[in-house]
């Protein structure tokens, strides 16, 4: 039974809406109009799970991560390539369109055939990209004839995508329409400007779906070349979570990459350079609210300060309905509906972002409250009581991080892709417990240099507000 989950109004947009959307039925490709939102969503998963991860390599060199879950006759499979938008070069949007074209034709099948093959067995297929990754995913029942048909289709998509000219043209036009439509959203414009100002010429600077100019210039041959370079066994990890035996999982993994050349792992991405000075950028836009984004490049996934910053940020603005920012901006002053902060660790340092949205004419006040809350926190660090409360929340809710196959698969993919220790999950709570007031204060001071903060505002400026 389908229940339309978006037809209600929740109390907090970010924690609320995201929480529920994640549980919504998985439709094939991610929604056309959510192109950009996915970046933040995927990048901000602090993930892990206390489930036993089995790990091995296929003969072609793909790393496999497998977790057996029982109780439901279904499995989630992901093949993740180091082929996100960070690999676009100057052709912004190349990675995204390559992933988007995969299921429009493969082997002897066209888009209709592929859709029919998945849907006739009730399987959900998806292909898409983020800044770091390109992911091809499948959720299917494990009953053999159904599973085999879905797997065969996925395998063919991975190994023999057609990249037909006609499909390419159509999907490119759809992407261009989506890019155009993004320009009507002050939130998206703000996010694009924010990444841009943080990363300058680094591959993290441009939006994952690209920009109109570069997408317009793409040719189908560019996609073929990108696919040949990056969709190779040595550049892939495979995640299998569900009701398959180890033997089935081994066979599945082998089949999935059997048709791919071994190739080589993608080169390391360049290091991120910190901005040289603080900047303030305003985009004039005819909206009723101004979107405020403040931050700078934060940390890489493997940064040793991760746990201190995770807990530290939880107290500042990561804790849903309980955080310093939420309290100062919303609970005390009613200045905004949402106010939050996050470190979004990626292969290279992902952003540290503090954001809110407020009525145009109170932008200055809200920004001042945001900056003061941040500055005071960096200067003073958390109190012992705040630390204790945050730890209780994080460790007390530990089991909820991976209480569905879907969440677990997402977390296993993170561990696999970023090559985190396999016992990361079991060690998680202990690492949280080891965080101290001093370690947070120290890590924040080193990673959040207030002299370099980048500020982006999008909305109607004071002089234009009637």
């Amino acid at each position, binding site marked *: *039974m*389908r*229940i*339309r989950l978006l037809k209600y*109004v*929740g*109390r*907090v*947009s970010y924690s609320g809406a995201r*929480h*529920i959307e994640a*549980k919504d039925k998985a439709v094939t490709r991610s929604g056309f109009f959510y192109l950009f939102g996915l970046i933040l969503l995927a990048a901000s998963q602090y993930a892990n799970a206390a489930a036993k991860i089995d790990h091995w390599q296929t003969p072609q060199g793909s790393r496999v991560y497998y977790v057996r879950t029982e109780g*439901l*006759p*279904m499995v989630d499979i992901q093949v993740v390539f180091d082929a996100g938008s960070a690999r676009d070069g100057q052709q912004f949007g190349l990675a995204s369109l390559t992933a988007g074209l995969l299921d429009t034709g493969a082997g002897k099948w066209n888009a209709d055939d592929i*859709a029919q093959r998945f*849907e*006739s*067995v*009730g399987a959900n297929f998806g292909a898409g990209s983020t800044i770091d990754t390109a992911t091809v995913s499948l959720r299917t*029942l494990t*009953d*053999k004839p159904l599973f085999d048909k879905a797997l065969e289709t996925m395998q063919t998509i991975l190994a023999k995508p057609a990249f037909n000219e006609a499909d390419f043209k*159509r999907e490119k*036009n*759809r992407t261009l*329409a989506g890019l*155009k*439509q993004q*320009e*009507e959203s002050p939130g998206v414009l703000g996010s694009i400007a924010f990444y841009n100002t943080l990363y300058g010429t680094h591959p993290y600077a441009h939006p994952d779906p690209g920009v109109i100019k570069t997408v317009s210039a793409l040719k189908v041959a560019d996609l073929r070349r990108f696919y040949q370079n990056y969709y190779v066994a040595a550049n892939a990890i495979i995640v299998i979570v569900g009701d398959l035996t180890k033997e089935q999982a081994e066979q599945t993994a082998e089949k999935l990459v059997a048709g791919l050349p071994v190739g080589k792992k993608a080169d390391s991405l360049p290091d991120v350079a910190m901005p040289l*000075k603080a*900047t303030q950028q305003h*985009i*004039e*836009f*005819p*909206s*009723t*609210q101004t979107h405020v984004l403040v931050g700078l490049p934060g940390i890489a996934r493997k940064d040793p300060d991760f746990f201190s910053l995770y807990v530290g940020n939880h107290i500042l603005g990561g*804790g*849903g*309905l*309980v955080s310093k920012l939420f309290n100062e901006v*919303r609970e*005390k002053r*009613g*200045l*905004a*509906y949402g106010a939050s902060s996050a470190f979004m660790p990626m292969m290279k340092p992902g952003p540290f972002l503090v954001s809110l949205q407020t*009525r145009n004419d109170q932008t200055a006040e809200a920004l001042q409250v945001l900056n003061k809350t941040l500055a005071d926190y960096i200067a003073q660090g958390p109190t012992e009581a705040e630390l204790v*409360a945050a730890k*209780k*929340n994080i460790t*007390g*809710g530990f089991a*909820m991080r991976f209480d*569905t196959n*879907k969440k677990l698969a997402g977390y296993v993919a993170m561990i696999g892709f970023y090559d985190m220790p396999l016992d990361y999950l079991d060690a998680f709570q202990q690492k949280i417990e080891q965080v101290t007031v001093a370690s947070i204060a120290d890590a924040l001071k080193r990673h959040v240099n207030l002299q370099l903060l980048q*500020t982006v505002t999008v909305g109607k400026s004071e002089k234009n507000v009637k």
Partner: protein
Amino acid sequence: MNHRLLYTALLCLPAFAGHAETKVFEHTLANGLKILVKEDHRSPVAVSQVWYKVGSSYEPGGITGISHMLEHMMFKGTDKHAQGEFSRIIAENGGDENAFTGQDYTAYFQTMEASRLAVSFELEADRMRNLHLLPEELKKELQVVTEERRMRTDDNPQAKMQEQFMSVAYSNSAYKHPIIGWPADIANYTVEDIQAWYQRWYAPNNATLVVVGDVQPTTVFELAEKYFGALKPSDIKPLKPQTEIEQLGVRKMTVKVPAKLPSILMGYKVPVLKTAANEWEVYALEVLAGVLDGGNGARLSKELVRGKQIAVSANAGYEMTSRMSDLFELEATPAAGKTVLELEAALKNEVKKLQQTLITTDELQRIKAQVLASDIYQKDSNFYQAMQIGTLETVGLGWQKADEYVAKINQVTAEQVREVAQKYLVEDHLSIAYLEPQTINTSTEKKEAK
């Protein structure tokens, strides 16, 4: 329902013989609070949701959005717990919490380790009857809700079109006004308004407590008795029906908003499970929605996005579990160089095909396979299962409807789909909105910060 028979005989798909249907356990306290429990022991967690039978469709003019406003105020403290305490306690217990308001319901939830269920029960029971409504808190929260409206609706062209569309598509149904409320109504709520709304609807005999997770039903019932048992019931006055009058001809409107792309929204008046004279019609409409928009292989993607390439996106939607008759909606964005009028013709042509030609066996099989699979996939999420139970119970259909769903969809025939297309997707009961984009002027200024 014998699901095993269903899977093998009707779908020619293999049976999941070992996979027993998980049962819902039901218990009602003396004060009228209904408790529904579903066990899922895969993970040591549980979601607890309190559903109230009140939402935006219960609201009279002048105070639209008040259910949602009250939902916000429910976090502002009680006699026992000061403002902020509720969320602090849940957080300290590792909980994840929030609330949501729909047209037909208001619900509050906590997800926690299953052993901490009592924490959530104690707090929810407390705020069910002992809410503290303070003028200064309302004043601040009014600003928050106004910001929420700006973000969700005022600065979002599609949401704005949807809001204008609903207000024209309906004549007198309470689905006419937005869940978040009209701006002038939001600006003028008083503490007395909120208090009256709270007293009228927040009582154990107007609520359902749904728990899904690693719990034992009897333990949950005992806990519920302990915390909710002493609450006094209210005399809940029945709601006036506000049955929508018959629409006598197509309604068209243009919505001019700052935007970059045009789009079209169409809605036909259709019955839902609660209002249909013949239940099968609703399931046939559900299948019809699947024929048009049940994935990449469905007709809107296949014919309009890929085939004719007249749309860059096209969707169909129908909510069969609404409390009152609803709209069967079609929404699409034209491809570059195509107009909304061309798209309208193409969408209507798809409707016409459904009225004239039987859908294929393949299509019917695809939808049935998808329904069967998603019935399993949904069980991956406690939260989704609780949502389903809570919704069905709150609109008055009863949670049992969830268990009937797969079987009823399986009984739908191609003839029935054609019949409902002919009967309900008719021009005179159609409303159409065209989004006409207005220029957005932007400029950027960047400087070194001081």
